[in-house]
């Protein structure tokens, strides 16, 4: 893995943010970003499954025949989700009461299956680990930011809208727009800088 590849993989969580850019995992993102604690907790659970599923799938990529790769991935992901569920229900019962149903749903989260299919199933262990960490952190950051904004708006305007699903949709749209606008402007600046350098060199 060269430096350029490492940089590309490590920044994957930002450049291809699963929530704001790829628009994946919308169900738990909207349903459980009603407050910062739920959002951060679900983000951590998802990131754990994402990192370990990426590593395990990458380790087994040559052993898993192509015809059964999807069910094999699902078995691995579901086992990791069950482990997380067992941990949360045993040690954090209050958290289990608030996000328990959505922990089970991590199994069918598009981000995890998407990374397994697109990356971990085709790459070595180290790049897959980096990809898992990057995407996991990207998801945690996105869902926590959304949770923080929604909680703040709920404190300001009172409960009943921003802590509900429709409020979640609107806030997600606004945060997504701001994120993409900032990101586009940064990319544009970088492009202009590159063009200037190229002109100077020419």
């Amino acid at each position, binding site marked *: 893995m060269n430096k350029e590849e490492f940089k590309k993989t490590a920044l994957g969580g930002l450049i291809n943010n699963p929530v704001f850019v790829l628009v994946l995992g919308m169900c738990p993102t909207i349903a459980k970003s009603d407050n910062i604690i739920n959002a951060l907790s679900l983000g951590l659970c998802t990131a754990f499954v994402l990192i370990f599923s990426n590593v395990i799938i990458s380790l*087994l990529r040559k*052993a*898993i*025949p192509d*015809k*059964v790769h999807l*069910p*094999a991935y699902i*078995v*691995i992901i*579901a*086992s990791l989700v*069950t*482990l997380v569920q*067992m*941990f949360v229900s*045993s*040690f954090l019962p209050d958290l*289990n*009461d*608030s996000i*328990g*149903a959505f922990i089970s749903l991590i199994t069918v989260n598009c981000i995890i299956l998407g990374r397994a299919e697109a990356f971990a199933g085709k790459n070595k262990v180290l790049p897959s680990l980096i990809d898992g960490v990057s995407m996991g952190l990207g998801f945690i950051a996105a869902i926590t930011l959304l949770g923080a904004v929604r909680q703040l708006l709920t404190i300001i305007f009172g409960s009943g809208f921003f802590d509900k699903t429709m409020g979640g949709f609107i806030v997600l749209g606004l945060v997504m727009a701001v994120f993409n606008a900032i990101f586009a402007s940064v990319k544009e600046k970088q492009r202009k800088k590159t063009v200037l350098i190229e002109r100077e060199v020419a």
Partner: protein
Amino acid sequence: MSRPVFNALKATAVLVIITAVCVGALALCNMFFPKYVPTLDGATAKLINEICPTGVSDDIALSDGYIELLGDDDYGVKLADYNKANKSAKAEILAVYRQSKGDNAGAFIIEAKSSGRDGDVVVLTAYKNENIVGATVKKQGESYWNKLPTDMFESLVGENVYSEINLSAKFGKTGATLSLTAVNRAVNISNSFAKEHNRSIVKPDDFTVYGHAKESE
């Protein structure tokens, strides 16, 4: 053996091995996670005292043994086995408490849980003379709990252990169907347990008249 058959067998074998390893790993992990151990704490004693009054304060009811937590030996069945045998009920018995003395001596309270919309709903149902004398929720984290009828638990009072509770039929559409179903399942499994183990829990030897405490000598 032809190539396609070999490939199909290989794919099946790999899938079976992965599944077996995952199941084994989870079973191993499960041994190290703590299991739910029911305890008779102040909060539970307070709830029991509300639905089935002992006639004394919550603190005294707890400290002076008015309410006691029973073990598997007291009702002659292992709760784990009972729950395993009644998996179709989609609810579990967690604990059984008994009032040994006080205004409702001879009554017993069953703690049962069932899955609602956002997690487990834990319900306490109190029985005396094979009738429900009170019920309440011990734990819930349901989003639409406030949509449930306020008299839901009161409506259970007087129901017999032999009756099949159907809260949906009683209250119709509530806006919290999953929560209502969870309560319904928890009460029904409590009813089944009470029906089967009523006599062993109450222990007729302890009470001269069924449901009335024997005078201390």
